[in-house]
């Protein structure tokens, strides 16, 4: 521990710095260990964690009389010692300036895009009208899995995919087709564990049949470029392209049994 400072003040600073590094750079490494995609930590959460760490440090230094005295020493020195006058003057200007700047950032009128909270997988309806016919979504299975040859369905689904879906979802099924940069929200990646891999085929059928316009309001139907494929494809064609999606991306659909056991979309 040669680098560990002796003075409680610097020890406190060191603890805070380490906490900061851990929160900002360390924690994002955890979710991937569990197979969950990682995301950067929002600033407000960082501030909260850091405040907690600060309170912890203060509790520790004030717990013991001599340590408290030692801890206060550097503050005191900066305030009174003649030698430290330059630091004192700089801090006296910098600290208020910082506070003023933060206050400015808070009150400055800013014109940002309105926040959009989009439920990517809203609850599906229990039944839909498909080309004028009612189809029950709840409990629905892909009929092609028990009919004909899976290879044939895959090949048919492949043709449908390349004729219709490619430009958006991409040949790698990664949502990066050559049109994807034109759309916000971007087309979803089927390689991602968070899309078709965690969905039942009935849900996928509903999403393909009804598209972006068929989403409930929490899905932001006005933004989504996902076409409503009932305008273009038959029921069997949608099931075939569903088979292609799972096979090509190397994923398996969730079954209704798994669904009943308690997970949600």
């Amino acid at each position, binding site marked *: 521990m040669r680098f560990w400072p002796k003075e409680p003040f610097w020890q406190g600073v060191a603890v805070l710095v380490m906490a900061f590094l851990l929160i900002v750079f360390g924690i994002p490494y955890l979710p991937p260990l569990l197979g969950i995609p990682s995301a950067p930590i929002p600033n407000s959460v960082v501030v909260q964690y850091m405040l907690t760490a600060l309170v912890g440090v203060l509790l520790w230094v004030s717990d013991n009389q001599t340590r408290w005295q030692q801890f206060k020493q550097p503050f*005191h020195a900066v305030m009174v010692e003649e030698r430290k006058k330059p630091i004192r003057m700089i801090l006296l200007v910098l*600290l*208020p300036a910082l506070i003023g700047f933060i206050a400015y950032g808070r009150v400055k009128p800013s*014109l940002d895009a309105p926040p959009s909270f989009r439920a990517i997988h809203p609850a599906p309806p229990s039944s839909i009208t498909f080309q004028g016919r009612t189809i029950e979504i709840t409990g629905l299975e892909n009929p092609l899995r028990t009919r004909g040859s899976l290879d044939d369905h895959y090949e048919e689904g492949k043709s449908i995919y390349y004729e219709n879906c490619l430009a958006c979802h991409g040949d790698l099924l990664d949502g990066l087709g050559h049109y994807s940069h034109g759309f916000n929200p971007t087309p979803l990646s089927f390689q991602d564990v968070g899309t078709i891999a965690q969905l039942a085929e009935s849900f996928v059928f509903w999403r393909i049949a009804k598209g972006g316009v068929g989403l409930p309001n929490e899905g932001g139907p006005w*933004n989504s*470029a996902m076409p409503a494929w009932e305008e273009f494809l038959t029921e069997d064609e949608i099931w075939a392209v569903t088979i292609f999606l799972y096979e090509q991306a190397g994923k398996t659909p969730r079954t209704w049994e798994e669904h009943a056991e308690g997970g949600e979309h």
Partner: protein
Amino acid sequence: MGTRALVMAAYLLLPLPLAAQETDNENPAGKVVYDRWCAGCHGTDGRGEGPGALTMLPRPRDFTRALYQVRTTGSGELPTDDDIMHVINVGMPGTAMPGWEDLLSSQEREDLVTYLKSMSRFFNSSPPPAQLEFSNAPRVSDDRIAEGAEIYEQVECSKCHGRSGRADGPSAPTQKDDSDLPIYPANLTQNWRFNGGGTVEDIYRVLRTGLDGTPMPTFSDLIDAGVITDDQLWNLAHYVRSLSPEESPRIREVITAANVGDGEGGLPTSPTDERWETVDKFYIPLVGQIVVKPRWFNPRVQNLWVQALHDSADVAMLVSWSDPSRSPNEEWAPFAQQIVEAMGPKDEGSTWAPGAPDQLVVQFPLTLPTGMERPYFLQGDARRPAYLWSWRSDHDRAVEMVARGLGTGQEQPASSQQVSAEAAWADGEWRVLFRRSLATPDSTSDLQMPRATVVPVAFQAWDGNNGEAGNQAAVSTWYFLALEEPVPVTVLITPLAAFLLTAVLGLVVVTRAQRREKEIPGRN
């Protein structure tokens, strides 16, 4: 006889055994990968006729013809293995051909190279290709760019690419590739869409090798003939590079319209006003409308640049985009016809007819949304109508419309038209300036734009000379237009107060500490 000729002779004797070896192996390693990931576009037999092929132009490559564009070898020569590997790795920007480096292992990609080559007998019957000698890029300078500009005219790049590089040259309407399909000369102001890459080295390489199978020629022969030097070719490459922005444009969601107040002559009144040069430009990529029938897979307008200003009373929006021709134009009619045929009436047919104009629609919601809700991004729906500024090149004016779905726009009566537009077309670029007052008398049929708000906005564009009309357009999803206000001085009160308060507090604490230190030195 040199060694090269010897090798060549050996190859001429070899084809039979090699071909036999190929057929021996019914399932070469590359075939599995190819069938899974490439055949959807390039076709199982490699002829470029996979199920996806008809939705793209340029079409996927026919590997049986062994025509490769991105090479380090001379014009008409076969590519090296590394050349093919390079394209498979990074893809071809500006086309549907993606890069595969992340998805496929290096072994799989090497197998693919072998497999692609096995699809054409040329690779068996020709000697291994020799790489061209490329010199290193000289440092760019204004002089080099200026000389490059002269060479650009001298060797007639402008015949195809146009004076400004926007693909508007006199020969542009007649260009075809080797499969007899219409092809555009590249738009040289958008290097991020160059098939072979956008760096000055990539451009130099393309100039040396040409793009085989397309009308883009090689210019190595001009060097061999002593018309220009290798160094001058670099200057040309630097000039071409300088036509595009230094960095590829980024997409920003919010288009800001600064408030110019009433100083400096107010808002610019012409699309060519020099003051636009200093106004921030926002890049809006567009893609084909492939959501509702009839779909369109070959949009000509790939992107727009949007600039906006307001003066508290009016808003001015300048939209500019590359378009090689002013539609309608007789000279381009056959080209448009070929495009319509090549892209096929996919769903229930094309609505294009000769004489179709260029069009631009700037789309807003009819009423400012309070929550997240907005009209559907393709001109609204029955419940949430969209409010449009619609401009067409044949009428040369803009009108206000209200739409409840793509193509359903109803023009407002003449008495309540509030938007004006002035358009200018020059050197392959449209510049259309829209102007409207922020508040209008028709408060129920026009979107009202209060100051200091953020208004959703989306765009659609048509190039009539590219077979586009009706629903067959280039489209965007929603962006936002922010009508900025200068920061009022009163906003500074709070931060200033915070500053003073903390400063005073700090002083008090310090003086008190110092006083106490004098009374009882050494204590704190």
